[in-house]
């Protein structure tokens, strides 16, 4: 009998000890990125960046003496997997907050999960709808995001066009969430900036050629073309533009063009292409007194040293998300509601993609000034103005 009681007692002790221990040791932070699949060019640098940031925090002694444990999952660019992984992070891994997903479509898919579980999510995807509840007209309480909304990129492009005296344009976009959302904003904001859209063309994400669409656009003789896509297709479309001898029609790319790799892949065709970019793409070009000069240079040097590959602007979104979360953990500890409240009132956070000023009405915290308009000159970016 005594033996039995002792056994039960021991088992209980073991279970309790096992259950209590991880809660004491560290802060658990979750991340979901599209590390593989169609959006891997987003998820891959994001994962690397988040890991790099956490490693740096832990090396410096952690947050408030606690080590940060980052659990990264790969959603393989698949909405169903993304949803399951979000639930797993919240319920099984007990993450206090989650960063990601990488893509607008997937972020929108998990918004209800985080709202229901009352866990903060800092998305790394572009769409304005992620932080805008159409029913209430306000942001979803638990959802934040670091990338500039596509509406800001559109405003930055249209502002530049007004400066250049362009008023008659054609748009061409890819038929997936990023392109569709950008296209909507382009159409919505055009009247405000007195811009006339004469052609509205589309292509598929895996298309090998956009000659037909561009030929049609050429027939309308617009002053400029705006392309809204990410991945290999945005390089093909620039090449086709060059091949068709359409240099007189100024080419604008979305902020998705933010990688030097794209200039290289365009094999000379990208010369003269305009594009709105976050500061971290052009850290070296920024004047020394620019508020983001220091953080962007530091990130660029760290990333190049660790991974020996050029920086992609998408990693910067993960940098912003992870550091925002680290600030929150430092200030209020691992309490979901307090983290949420802290993020909502965070002001003047100097990140890779702008200076963030969050409020109850704005869970993105950026303005169109978060974009610098750049133009491709001599196979590199140059400030346009």
């Amino acid at each position, binding site marked *: 009998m005594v033996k039995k009681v002792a056994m039960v007692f021991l088992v209980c002790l073991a279970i309790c000890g096992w259950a209590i221990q991880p809660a004491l040791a560290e802060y658990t932070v979750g991340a979901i990125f599209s590390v*593989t*699949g*169609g959006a*891997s*060019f987003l998820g*891959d640098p994001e994962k690397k960046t988040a890991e790099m940031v956490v490693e740096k925090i832990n090396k410096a002694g952690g947050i408030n003496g606690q080590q940060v444990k980052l659990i990264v999952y790969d959603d393989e660019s698949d909405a169903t997997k993304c949803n399951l992984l979000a639930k797993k992070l919240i319920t099984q891994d007990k993450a206090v907050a989650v960063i990601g997903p990488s893509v607008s479509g997937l972020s929108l898919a998990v918004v209800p999960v985080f709202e229901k579980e009352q866990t903060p999510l800092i998305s790394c995807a572009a769409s304005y709808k992620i932080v805008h509840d159409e029913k209430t007209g306000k942001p979803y309480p638990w959802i934040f995001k670091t990338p500039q909304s596509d509406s800001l990129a559109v405003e930055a492009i249209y502002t530049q066009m007004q400066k250049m005296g362009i008023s008659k344009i054609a748009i061409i976009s890819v*038929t997936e969430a990023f392109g569709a959302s950008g296209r909507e904003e382009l159409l919505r904001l055009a009247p405000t900036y007195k811009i006339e859209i004469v052609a509205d*063309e*589309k*292509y*598929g994400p*895996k*298309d*090998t*050629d956009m*000659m*037909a*669409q561009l*030929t*049609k656009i*050429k*027939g309308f*003789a617009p*002053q400029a073309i705006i392309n809204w896509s990410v*991945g*290999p297709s945005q*390089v*093909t479309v620039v090449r086709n533009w060059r*091949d*068709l*001898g359409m240099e*007189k029609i100024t080419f604008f790319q979305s902020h998705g063009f933010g990688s030097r*790799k794209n200039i*290289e*892949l365009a*094999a*000379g065709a990208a010369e003269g292409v305009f594009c709105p970019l976050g500061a971290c793409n052009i850290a070296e070009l920024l004047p020394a007194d620019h508020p983001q000069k220091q953080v962007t240079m530091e990130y660029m040097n760290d990333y190049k040293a660790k991974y020996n590959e050029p920086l992609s602007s998408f990693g910067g979104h993960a940098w912003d998300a992870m550091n925002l979360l680290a600030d929150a953990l430092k200030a209020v500890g691992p309490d979901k509601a307090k983290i949420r409240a802290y993020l909502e009132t965070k002001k003047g956070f100097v990140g890779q993609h702008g200076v963030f000023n969050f409020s109850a009405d704005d869970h993105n915290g950026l303005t169109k000034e978060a974009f610098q308009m750049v133009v491709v000159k001599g196979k590199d970016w140059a400030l346009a103005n």
Partner: protein
Amino acid sequence: METFPFLNQLLQFLVTGLTVGAIYAMVAIGFNIIYNVTEIINLAQGEFVMLGGLVMVSVHTSLGLPLLLAFPVTVLVVTLVGVLLDRLAIRPIRKPSVMTLIIATVAASIIIKGLAMIIWGKSPYDLPAFSGRTPIDIGGVIIQPQYLWVIGFLVAVAVGLTLFFNRTILGKAMGACADNPDAARLVGINVRHMVLLSFALSAAIGAVAGLTLTPIALMDYDRGAMLAIKGFGAAILGGLGSFPGAILGGLILGLIESLSAGMLASGYKDAYALIILLAVLFIRPSGILGNLEVTRFKRF
């Protein structure tokens, strides 16, 4: 701003459509070669195209072999992958039914894609165009020199295969397997070797399609599936098993896509292509050049 006459636009659509169509046609031919000998649809066909592009990138750009040498090396490497596919995935299956074999090719395509992702990473790669990137301007219609290469290779493949199947013993033996494997076995043809050969041949043609496409559209590890779907569509449209049908089907598919993107709503170009495909199958279930009598004897 200069004007751009409608006729020029139309010609431009045709040029673009024929180029894209030529790629689809080459993929469709690859489907047909394996289908004719084994009656299976090799769903890893798109992966051969992807490998063709990426192996060429490694051999030509990274290792620095000249084009003339890199070309055969790439084709050989991909052919080897095709041979391995047959030896490792197709032949070991104990009781081969058409369905299990097709599923084996699906598995193989996922494995090849995964390995390509590990080897080359996820970013797209470019190749220098074979004869420069200066576009040729013929009366306002722009033709990239690479387009001519793509169409040229399609012609070369078509001529080569016609000679092979009509003039050589080996080709005729393969044709015999396609017509009746049991009878072919009776007259002493090693059907297994013919199956192996068919995989090798269609891998080689896939590789050619991939390495000519890459300078136009870049190549990344997950491009294969889409090309396989388009190529399969082309093969069905032209009539599964028919080589002239595959070429016709590919070119028609490319033209529909290009013309509908240019003249109708570009967002629905794939839908137009599918509608035409369905319409053709409705009127001629065996495809444009397919033969219904022959398909009756096939298991799939």
